[in-house]
């Protein structure tokens, strides 16, 4: 064959390959760059805030899990305390439609389920270990938690759920990539109440945990989180913070843009985005209803999706 012909063939092949790649990429992005839909039976659930203080006498958390399917479900769960950034795991067995709950400070023991007590602040991850490879066997559970203190404050929230998207066995690599499981949210949008540092202070809190986590090799994930705040007059502010493993901080401590005097309105629109790794976050709303303080869990609206991986031991 002549070299010209060969050259033309190579060029043509490259062009076709490029076109195919562009089309595939475009399709993939269009189809899968989505936030994980919530409140559906899921295969992976993450509780971003578990708090136990004073062995439960000061603050405790009631963890709740429910099997939403008509089959028995095995779950592998792992607590990740913020101070060690390493996990300790346990197994939960749920009969069809069974609900189960326990106090994090005490744990529970019930037949095949044994949950150890927890005595720190951190997160909890639970993954369905299905007995067959179908999606239906994976997407079966949901959960919520209520953090409550002796001062009467209560933070109730639903766990963030990820759906399994393709049939297959469970491996120790949980690919939140939009193919095996739904992706991690790219942006998280909150409406928050501006902090008022005047006496008595009203300070809401921000809780952030990275989506990517290697609990097998104990490689800690560190990510910068970009913060954008928009007030009621459409004026924008920004800030950023670095998160390693877990972060729980008052909004006012992160930046003064969360205070009413700087923000200029009662309510703000907060947008969070992890740079190196997508993150999961929640806000704890705190405000005064004289004479009592009021507290509530504030879950985000999710936008876009980005891939992350959780490696479990």
């Amino acid at each position: 064959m002549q070299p010209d012909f060969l050259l033309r063939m190579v060029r043509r092949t490259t062009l076709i390959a490029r076109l195919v790649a562009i089309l595939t990429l475009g399709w993939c992005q269009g189809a899968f760059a989505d936030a994980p839909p919530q409140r559906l039976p899921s295969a992976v659930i993450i509780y971003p805030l578990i708090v136990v203080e004073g062995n439960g006498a000061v603050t405790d958390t009631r963890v709740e899990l429910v099997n939403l399917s008509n089959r028995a479900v095995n779950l592998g769960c792992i607590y990740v305390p913020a101070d060690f950034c390493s996990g300790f795991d346990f197994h939960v067995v749920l009969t069809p439609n069974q609900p189960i709950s326990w106090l994090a400070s005490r744990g529970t023991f019930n037949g095949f389920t044994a949950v150890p007590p927890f005595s720190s602040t951190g997160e909890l991850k639970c993954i369905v270990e299905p007995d067959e490879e179908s999606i239906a066997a994976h997407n079966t559970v949901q959960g919520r938690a209520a953090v409550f203190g002796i001062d009467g404050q209560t933070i109730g929230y639903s766990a963030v759920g990820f759906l399994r998207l393709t049939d297959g066995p469970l491996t120790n690599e949980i690919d939140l990539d939009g193919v095996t499981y739904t992706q991690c949210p790219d942006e998280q949008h909150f409406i928050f109440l501006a902090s008022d540092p005047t006496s008595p202070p009203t300070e809401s809190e921000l809780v952030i945990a990275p989506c990517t986590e290697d609990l097998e090799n104990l490689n800690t994930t560190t990510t910068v989180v970009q913060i954008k705040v928009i007030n009621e007059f459409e004026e924008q502010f920004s800030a950023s913070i670095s998160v390693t493993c877990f972060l729980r901080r008052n909004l006012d401590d992160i930046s003064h843009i969360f205070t009413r005097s700087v923000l200029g309105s009662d309510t703000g629109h907060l947008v969070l985005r992890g740079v190196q790794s997508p993150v999961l976050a929640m806000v704890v709303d705190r405000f005064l209803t004289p004479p009592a303080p009021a507290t509530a869990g504030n879950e985000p609206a999710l936008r876009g999706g980005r891939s992350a991986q959780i490696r479990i031991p």
Partner: protein
Amino acid sequence: MRGRSSMKTLLITAGLLAAMSVGGASAARAQSIDWTNLMRALGNALHSWRISPFPNRTPTAVQATRMPAAGTSTRAPTVTRTLPPTRTETATRVPTRTPPATRTATATRTATNTRPATFTATPRPTSTPIPTAGSEGQIAFDTAEGVPPQQKLASAFLVFPYIDTTAPVDTRIELMNMSNEQISLQCFYVRQSDCVEIGFFVSLTANQPLSWSAFEGTSNPLTGTSVPPLDTFGAIGELKCAVDASRPDLSAHNVLQGRALVFDKNTGETVGYGAIGFQRLSPGSYTHIVELDGFTYESCPDRLHFQVLSNQTGGPSSTLIAVPCAEDLLTQRPTESVVQLAIVNEFEQVFSSSFRFSCFTAQSFSKFGTLKKSVLGTDTAHLVVRGVSSPLIGLVIDRFTGQGGTLHTTANEPFLEGGRSATVIFP
């Protein structure tokens, strides 16, 4: 012998060369060949043998299906195969297409009146598949059909199932525009006491957050937003908000999220929850009729699953709140429905209960013997809620005692299963 064989070889070679040159020439003239006709002819030939490798032949099958409409025998495969008759039919179809003029006229008429008719007609039959208890009569153990609405995403229609302004309680309603464009919303409070609606419009600039006290309302002459109080003397009810999109694109519809904080000014008891969101699924303009049918908007959840704490004797009681998905605010006909409850304890034992309500309901757990810890036997229960004549949206207010007997209150939002159609008609 050798001469003969060499002659034969020569002849074969010459023949081959001639064939190749003809082939080459024809290849060179390949452009001039009418491939479409050739393929069609080949297709026809194969089709007559019932082998049709060309997907383009499918239209013929469609025409064949139309034959019965013309009254011709369906069976006769010969008719299907014979092309000429089919083509004659196509010819007959042409005149039918000729009256587009008349159709345009009809279209103008449709714009005026036909639309409401179509809208009312479609949703109601769809929402008819009413009670159908699950297998073995247990609503908890049957598989719900349809797709529930995806939550925590930018939505086109929001429902806040619980707004309370009865003193000393108030509700802070929060809305957030998640798009980079200005948006308009049409909202309605619906009071529990008389099922009366109070409507208003909200305008949000790009990415704007907005919050107001439901007892006081809010007004902003700059944006044109004016929200009346739910009731002058305080009331309980729900709030529904729909995006009045400026463009038919989905990106102009799915832009909204919201939450509400219901708090007691004396005790600090707070219930904070996210509004249930429905995404628009097909492009089109906002018509004041929100079809939660799984085509125009996401459908309503068929069943709500809650994980609840059982009611302890002498302890605080949790509350179940439910509002119907379907609502006709145009003719002010309150939706009535029976609510079926299935309660599963930690030992997989099932109990059931039911009640009837209209427009809005708040039921204390103490009313249901089956939710008492002494009856249920476990601390936690799996509560499955299903509306019979209309799907529901709901919320549980968890109340329990903590360290030192302190009272704790928190919102308990449902997990959603299945989907059923419902229509919300705004005036």
